[in-house]
């Protein structure tokens, strides 16, 4: 019997901005934005990311692999290939996957010692050509 899979191949978010300041011991308490990707399919997901900014050209070519029927969470702070994503700068992102996935973006802001967490919705984006 074919197992059910979830999600879409295209996702997008508009309200990214990684806080510059952090308090507390790192890495647990570093201010960061984390992308979580759920791959319920039996195939490895190859996810291509492109980031968009207010005042410069988009930067694409980021690649994330997610094993079949697994989740992967990674901090956008840690991406350097092809470029580090600047902190404290508004950005948006588009994710294109070869198989359907579910995507969530989470921001952790520890700029003040009273920790606040905020989840951000990422939208299914069908894309127009």
């Amino acid at each position: 019997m074919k197992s059910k899979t979830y999600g879409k191949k295209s996702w997008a978010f508009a309200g990214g901005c990684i806080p510059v300041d952090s308090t507390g011991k790192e890495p647990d308490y570093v201010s960061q934005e984390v992308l979580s990707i759920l791959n319920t399919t039996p195939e490895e997901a190859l996810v291509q990311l492109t980031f968009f900014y207010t005042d410069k050209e988009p930067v694409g070519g980021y690649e994330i692999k997610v094993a079949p029927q697994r989740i992967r969470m990674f901090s956008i702070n840690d991406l350097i290939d092809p470029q580090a994503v600047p902190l404290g700068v508004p950005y948006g992102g588009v994710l294109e996957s070869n198989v359907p996935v579910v995507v969530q973006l989470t921001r952790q802001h520890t700029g003040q010692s009273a920790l606040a967490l905020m989840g951000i919705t990422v939208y299914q984006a069908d894309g127009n050509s």
Partner: protein
Amino acid sequence: MSNEWTNWSGSVRFSPEEIAAPASERGVVELVQQAIAQRKGIRIVGAGHSSVPLVQTNHVLVSQHKLKGAVGHDPASHRVNMLPGTSISEAGEELIKLKLSMHNTGDVDMQYLAGAFGTGTHGSGRTLQNLSSMLVGCKLVDGTGELRSFSLEEHPDIMRAAKVSLGALGFFTELTIQAEPAVLYARKEYCSHIDVSLEHLEELIDSNRMFDMYWYPRSDRTKLRTCNQLGEGMDDIPFAEKAEQSKGWLYEILPQFRDLKYEEMEYIIPLEAGPECFREIRKRIKEKHRQYVGWRVLYRTIAADDVYLSPFYNQESVTIAVLQNNELEYKKYFDDIEPIFRAYGGRPHWGKKHSLAARDFQELYPEWEKFLKIRQQFDPEGIFLNDYLKKIFGL
């Protein structure tokens, strides 16, 4: 037709009048003699991995890419004659055919032997000297067009100048390298935290033949890498989580392929000053730079030597490298970190970004004048000099 030449990272670009690629020693001699007759300058280029304008010239740029391979071998002494355009990777492949190995390699293995030796490229290991220590003999065409041969036993002073010479003594046409019998190595990578890593740093350096630490400025995580002959070194690192391991010949497992391009500044500082210098750099990066810098900082060690222009001259050393994506702003970052390196008596890597000039080097290198004297003898007309080397040498 434009002859534009670009280095690996893209930050050094120029258009020489001619790019030549001799395929033989005779071809090199003729090229040098022709340049002398036409009063033209020559610079020699290897793989182009250096990110300072060592090879820049308006006249003749000579590539070594047709001068590759092993051309002789003395089984008794494990010495092998290699052509200068043999890359580190290719040298490993040639040596293993003879059941031999280099004693160490860097993280990158695309550099040609002559360029790696000439810039003091090093690898890591408290008891291991930089790659140029393998050079025990050479043939080179000097600035008068003469083909000359040297060996460590017969010309120790010349070899002390030639090993790290920035392509300023002439064009190497053959390199005799001291190899060692090949043995299998185990390479292991671990993830840890900077506080734990610094607490155990001395033990990690002393207990492993090769050890590197990478610190990630946006998380305070570290990657610890060990490489030891099988059965030697730390069997495991109990305070870190093992991420990867491999076993094989050194040249196969030590370098890591990296397509992602970056700019880099690396300084060599006294071993005992390493942790304090690193702590200061870490503090500065976290306070001022990590908004735009995600690249890790690399901490390694290398043994002392007696080579005139070796950054490890007479000094057990730590090397600390800061990196940035080549398409992002790096100068402000490097300019801000460099004074910290300088305050700890740092000597810059010859092939990476720095801002030093002759007066600085004169203070940092006790045998600076000896090198300059030998350079003058080898190249009296200065055909192997360019503007950058004139600034470095104060000429």
